[in-house]
């Protein structure tokens, strides 16, 4: 009956306590509210894309291997710095990492008509002429993968470990410049992080400020 007597007080009180508890519980997890883009120590967003050979590339297929994502735009002076013949910085890193069993995906998110946009043929010609050896060049003209990762600059680097967890994001190295001459005096964050992961250590510098040209997204 709703002309409730003393016992019903217990009922009502119990409910109030339960409701209050669950309110607290419900708010305790507000901290997990998402969307700051990819985060270190958390599973990297998965994607499928098409590479310059027309193959479908599925990130989740590389589970068990390290994956390095490199956002690139061959006409950007900062990218040219790292592909410059004098240092061959990016090429060397690609060869050593893929040689060690890792997967290197170069991603081109330049929209059609914008700087750095390439056709499949051009992408392959560029790899050829620059002596680059990525596992695949992913053509992301609509920018969907770039936006998923919050890729801001070319170059912008990401390292995903064997378990699919993001371990590094940021710049290729410590000297923000477009001058290849600065490369010998800089710390290569990607090489450093890969070395630390290889030694079973945690990455000491997991997030750095990427530098370079803006990714030439559509819109």
């Amino acid at each position, binding site marked *: 009956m709703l002309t409730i007597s003393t016992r019903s*007080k217990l009922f009502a009180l119990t409910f109030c306590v339960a409701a209050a508890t669950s309110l607290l519980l*419900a708010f305790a997890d507000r901290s997990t509210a998402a969307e700051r883009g990819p985060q270190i120590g958390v599973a990297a967003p998965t994607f499928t894309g098409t590479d310059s050979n027309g193959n479908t590339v599925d990130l989740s297929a590389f589970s068990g291997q390290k994956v390095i994502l490199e956002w690139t735009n061959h006409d950007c002076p900062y990218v040219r710095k790292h592909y410059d013949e004098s240092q061959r910085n990016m090429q060397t890193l690609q060869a050593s990492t893929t040689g060690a069993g890792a997967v290197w995906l170069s991603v081109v998110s330049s929209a059609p008509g914008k700087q750095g946009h390439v056709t499949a043929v051009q992408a392959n010609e560029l790899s050829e002429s620059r002596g680059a050896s990525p596992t695949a060049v992913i053509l992301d003209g609509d920018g969907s993968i770039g936006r998923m990762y919050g890729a801001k600059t070319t170059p912008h680097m990401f390292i995903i470990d064997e378990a699919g967890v993001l371990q590094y994001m940021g710049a290729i190295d410590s000297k923000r410049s477009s001058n290849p001459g600065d490369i010998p005096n800089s710390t290569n964050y990607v090489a450093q992080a890969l070395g630390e992961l290889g030694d079973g250590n945690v990455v000491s510098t997991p997030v750095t400020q990427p530098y370079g040209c803006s990714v030439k997204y559509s819109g």
Partner: protein
Amino acid sequence: MGLKALKNLIFGLVALVLAGATLPAAANPVSTPNVKAWLISEMEEVPAGTTFWVALRQEIREGWHTYWKNPGDSGEPTTIDWVLPEGFVAGDIVWPAPERIPLADLVNFGYSGDLYLLVPIIAPADLAPGTSVTLTANARWLVCKDICIPEEATLTLTMDVASGDVAANKIWQKAFSNTRMALPIPSPWPASFGQRNESIALQLDMGSIDLPSIKSVEVFSSQEGVLKNAVEAQFQKTERGLAIQLIPGTRADEIGDTFDGVVVIEEDLKDGVVRRAFQVEADRAAFSDLPAPNVLSAIDIPIWQALVFAFIGGLILNLMPCVLPVLSMKALDIVRQAREAPWIARQHGLSYAAGVLVSFLIVGGVLVSLRSAGDQIGWGFQLQSPVIVTLLAYLMFAVGLNLANVFSFGSSMMGIGSGLARGSGLTGSFFTGVLATVVATPCTAPFMGTALGFALVQPMAIALGIFGALGLGLAAPYLAVSFSPALLRLIPKPGAWMERFKQLLAFPMFATAIWLVWVLSAQVAANVVILVLAGAVLIAFAAWVFESTKMATGTWYVAGRVLAVLAVGGALALIDWSPQRAAATTTHSKLPEHAEAYSDNRLKDLLAQDRAVFVNLTADWCITCKANESVAFTAAVHEHMTQHDIAYLVGDWTSYDEEIGQKLARFGRAGVPLYVIYPKPSSGKEPYLLPQLLTEGIVLDAFEGL
């Protein structure tokens, strides 16, 4: 013109050219493809032993820009390497406030047009007057439009050492003083900031000064990567001054105890827009100590109007299907009591009202404090938690069982009179009020939306006043009945019909329970829903055992109570208590074919394509929303949208969604439903809101305004 005059003119021109040629700026300026650069001094000569100012001037090609010290999402700041004579020391560049430079998804910070980067130079004291010194600046910059080009220039400036007082350079003096006037000044107001999850609150304690003229607020962090640059700062004027909301970037964890940056405030004054920049060093404070960084734009209603709306909203709440049964029962009780002793009925009316008021004040207090702690929650937020939805479903079911006489509290022998005589019924009435509030929470009645939206951005006292008015509205009919004999007479005499009527009311309660389970099914996996249904069986069992053994004595009575408690405990144990918010990804309600899921970006895209957009923010637990969707969103409405190329975006708030929470706040609403029509941007019309209760006619009429 005479010959002499002509001669004078030629002589003058030659002198001018010669003077120009002998200016110490021979290797100065330097033109690169996109920038013309100068190295200039504010003083005519070098004053020994003091600091004087020089500047790197960049005249940037139209449409191109160079960068601030924090270039934003990409880019590189301009740097200067100095080659100076012995004893000279150059300071750092003093950066003017930058502009936001959006580029597709990214935002950079930098400059366009004519830029002066000021640098202080300390000259040594032991300079010989009459000699000259040469300052060399190796300047590098990145200049970008849609593409970026690194450029550099070596600029030299040769100046004489002054022998006495130094005169200002007549050509550049003005530029120096203009630049200096526009530099960020140290903020005259104490600043603090707090960081929590997806929000950074920055507070400028300007006091309660009236700032109606503030048009825009921009925040530039000196530290790179700590803010999400693409999201513009949102601001609100509070009692303490200016509350600014920022979104953290990938490196937000690297903010230390101070947030260092430049805040640019644009004011709309009579003689045009004034842009002022302030250097801010904010100390870290507890997030909860900072005023709510919510945006208040749409609501600007007087307090009395909000109170009236709240009261009317509370009244209408009485008619909601989940509240009605509980309240009808209360009404019947009051009728019964009033027949026996009117003064007792009044006491019950009052304690019921007190129950409603107290619970509304508690809910309001919790809501406002969570809001001020930065949570994007609103009315109905309770139903975003699967645990609470489950508890409510159990409660509705239990109340239904009670109404259907499966179980009852108290001895059936206990006469109404005896209960009243002991006065214990008053606490009962109080808790009925609490119960009414609990069951009312899923419903947003029309008028409540505006009032609640208003309440949530007010200081605590006003907010609580509005929640109080809402409670008064909910309690009003029963207060009126218990106090007015005339109204009482309108209700039929108590009798056997009351028992039947009470049992009938069990069915809306069961229906409400089913609806809550449906809401739950949109939030959690199917097996969890089945567990909850099993829990309902346990509750029914508990009710039956409780009732069957109520009159028993000794062991049976104890065993009955123990079993009932165990069964309720079992039902509670079946709930998934893990503090997980309903997965936001579950899509449940069938959207019409042309509808798309709402996101800020999608809305921006559509508007960028110059399309009209109809935004519907809804939730499965929102009865008003569901009613509107079935009554007003008819085939004709959908057809109108497809025919007239009106995009339809549906935002689902059944589960917590920060973006939708912010969107609601932007329109001054605390909860769903919210209906907004965005006309084509090219039409120049402002977006407008639809009422919370819709008919097909209202919607179609609203489309006519496009």
